[in-house]
């Protein structure tokens, strides 16, 4: 749904401005809802990559994966039905940063960029009166940040917070094609990952040198050092420490976007959390193998356990960052957002998020907003989307809300009443030409309790596409497909989704 700031909204906001300037301290004492904020407040967005809401104890997961976030969520506005814009880094991050859905920003393929107009229409341009700083471990997210670099005052080089490795010269030499160069380099040199590499001789020498380089961390990370997958290792601690040092040094108001790779695969937690959930008796719900099930479908419970142990590590570091912001006084004047770009799944024969499926674990993500001075939490159960974050932050930090965003100001900050049956969409179309209408895609529509999946164009599904309908309130595990038992609802939602697709495809037909 496209939301523009019309004249009437503007007048309402203008009328509220004096109240907004005076009210926060008054209302804080009364522990009531937030208000329109005065200008000059900082914004800090913390993204943990591939962070599924379903594996967070603050969202009801039976494993205690996030003791720090649980503790802090009691002081936060917690969104319980928040959806990513896509189900992998590029599309999900682009939606978060541009405030529009993948079919609009067109960053459809892995490691692609957004359509040219969005190079200057993003979170950083929206927060233009702030000092804008950004960092990510994730190479694909970094591609987007580099595209937005003209809108960012300080883009911290990705390599800066990776542990120096033998891969760094390759990344620097091929920095304009870093991702594919790194993949090939990894396949050439990293003989330990599969037992073989393209290189017959140097790969063995490389592995030996690399092992010596990170030997001192071996005892700290029993499953190996966290890595960016195809290249070098990193420690979240190092990134958090650096970010803390920058936040105290840069001018205020600032807007920081910090996108950490964990708990993204490979799931390599620190010694402190190693085997924390081993044989803990987690109730495992057997689900039917999906039409999109991949080859990597074995040991899903084991993988989920390792993922959950990695989440513990993220939780500790988020807690540490929060405590620093609080003790340094920055939190008194900063909006802190905790979210993700997409989720992760371990069911139906699917492991991770390289899948065309759109089940809840891979798209339902956390969103918590920590308001300056807030002591009591608010739980929001409305269905919300990643595209709502940008307009909300612009609103809260006193900046103009961009006209292009497809999101809305999140409750409870909106001065207008939320539409109860608002449609939330999501799309994945990795093989689609970004300059063509969507012909092979996974799409989703959520309205109130119902969630419709619609897959079309894939060889795995029929020419009519594949439709599934779930009541995610009464059936959060998506076990019972309601397409047959509730045909009217399925047809209504499918028609709406198809109408939306027709609308977004129109410019490309």
């Amino acid at each position, binding site marked *: 749904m496209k939301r523009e700031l019309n004249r009437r909204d503007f007048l309402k906001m203008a009328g509220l401005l004096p109240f907004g300037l005076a009210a926060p301290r008054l209302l804080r004492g009364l522990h009531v809802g937030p208000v329109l904020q005065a200008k000059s407040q900082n914004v800090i967005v913390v993204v943990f990559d591939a962070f599924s809401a379903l594996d967070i104890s603050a969202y009801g997961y039976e494993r205690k994966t996030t003791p720090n976030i649980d503790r802090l969520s009691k002081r936060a506005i917690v969104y319980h039905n928040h959806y990513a814009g896509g189900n992998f880094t590029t599309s999900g991050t682009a939606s978060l940063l541009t405030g529009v859905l993948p079919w609009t920003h067109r960053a459809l*393929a*892995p*490691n692609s960029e957004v359509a040219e107009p969005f190079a200057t229409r993003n979170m950083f341009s929206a927060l233009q009166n702030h000092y804008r700083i950004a960092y990510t471990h994730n190479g694909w997210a970094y591609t987007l940040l580099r595209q937005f670099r003209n809108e960012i005052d300080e883009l911290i080089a990705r390599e800066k917070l990776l542990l120096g490795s033998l891969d760094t010269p390759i990344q620097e030499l*091929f920095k*304009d*094609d870093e991702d*594919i*160069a790194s*993949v*090939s*380099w990894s*396949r*050439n040199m990293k*003989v330990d990952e*599969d*037992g*073989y*590499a*393209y*290189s*017959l*001789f*140097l790969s063995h020498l490389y592995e030996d040198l690399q092992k010596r380089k990170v030997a001192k961390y071996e005892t700290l990370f029993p499953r190996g050092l966290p890595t960016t997958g195809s290249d070098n290792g990193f420690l979240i601690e190092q990134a958090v420490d650096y970010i803390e040092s920058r936040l105290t040094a840069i001018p205020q108001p600032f807007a920081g976007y910090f996108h950490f790779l964990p708990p993204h695969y490979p799931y390599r937690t620190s010694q402190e959390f190693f085997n924390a959930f081993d044989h803990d008796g987690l109730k495992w719900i057997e689900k039917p193998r999906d039409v999109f099930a991949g080859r990597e479908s074995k040991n899903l419970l084991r993988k989920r356990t390792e993922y959950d142990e990695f989440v513990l590590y993220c939780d500790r570091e988020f807690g540490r960052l929060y405590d620093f912001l609080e003790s340094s006084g920055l939190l008194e004047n900063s909006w802190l957002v905790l979210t993700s770009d997409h989720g992760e799944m371990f069911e139906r024969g699917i492991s991770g998020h*390289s899948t065309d499926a759109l089940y809840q674990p891979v798209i339902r993500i956390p969103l918590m907003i920590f308001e300056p001075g807030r002591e009591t939490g608010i739980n929001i159960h409305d269905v919300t989307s990643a595209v709502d974050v940008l307009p909300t932050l612009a609103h809260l930090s006193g900046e103009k809300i961009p006209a292009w965003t497809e999101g809305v100001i999140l409750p409870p900050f909106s001065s207008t009443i939320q539409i109860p049956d608002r449609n939330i969409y999501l799309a994945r179309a990795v*093989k689609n030409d970004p300059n063509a209408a969507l012909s092979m895609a996974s799409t989703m529509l959520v309205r109130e309790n119902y969630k419709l999946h619609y897959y079309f164009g894939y060889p795995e599904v029929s020419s009519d596409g594949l439709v599934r309908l779930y009541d995610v309130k009464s059936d959060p595990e998506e076990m019972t497909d309601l397409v047959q038992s509730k045909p009217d609802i399925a047809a209504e939602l499918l028609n709406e989704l198809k109408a939306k697709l027709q609308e977004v495809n129109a410019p490309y037909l």
Partner: protein
Amino acid sequence: MNTQLNFITRRYSKQGLWSLFLLCAFPLHLWTLILTFRDMSWVIERTNLWDAIGVISYGMVFALAESIILFVMIALLGLLTPKQWDTDRRVAFLSLLVILTGIWGILRQARYVWEWSLPLPLLQFLAQSDHPFRFLYVMYLAVVVPTVLLPVYLFLRSKKSTQWMKELMERLSTLTVFYLVFDMIGLVIVIVRNLS
């Protein structure tokens, strides 16, 4: 510098060095091509055809770089061979070493690619022994050492060995020249990818 070059040119002919380089490049390129084409579907599944071509292109460029490094090392190693050997015999001998090392290098990794395993009775024997790893290493040595030493011994003893190696090199060189063409195409693709 000139003295060093003279020292090398006294031990090698230009044609000999080129043949030796092609021999060094052969096993490295062969293995890279086998694995890159094996990976292609995996990469396309995750990205697209252009990126898959990119992965292969980088692979070829890295293989070329490794070939040059291996060639330099082998050429330097050749300086330790007897001075009285003529350049053809030296190159033939070094080529034999490259081929043997290449075969074992490929076999070492191929067992993971195609998931080869030791025969079951042998595994049972190792499992029951007190020192399985010691036995395993002895077994490897018992296989690897003769397969290297025997050809080397035969080469040194036989007068025709240089001619055989030369003929083999000629055949493999023709194939390797094709690989070098792939390298050049790969290099162009890498440059284009980094410019676009």
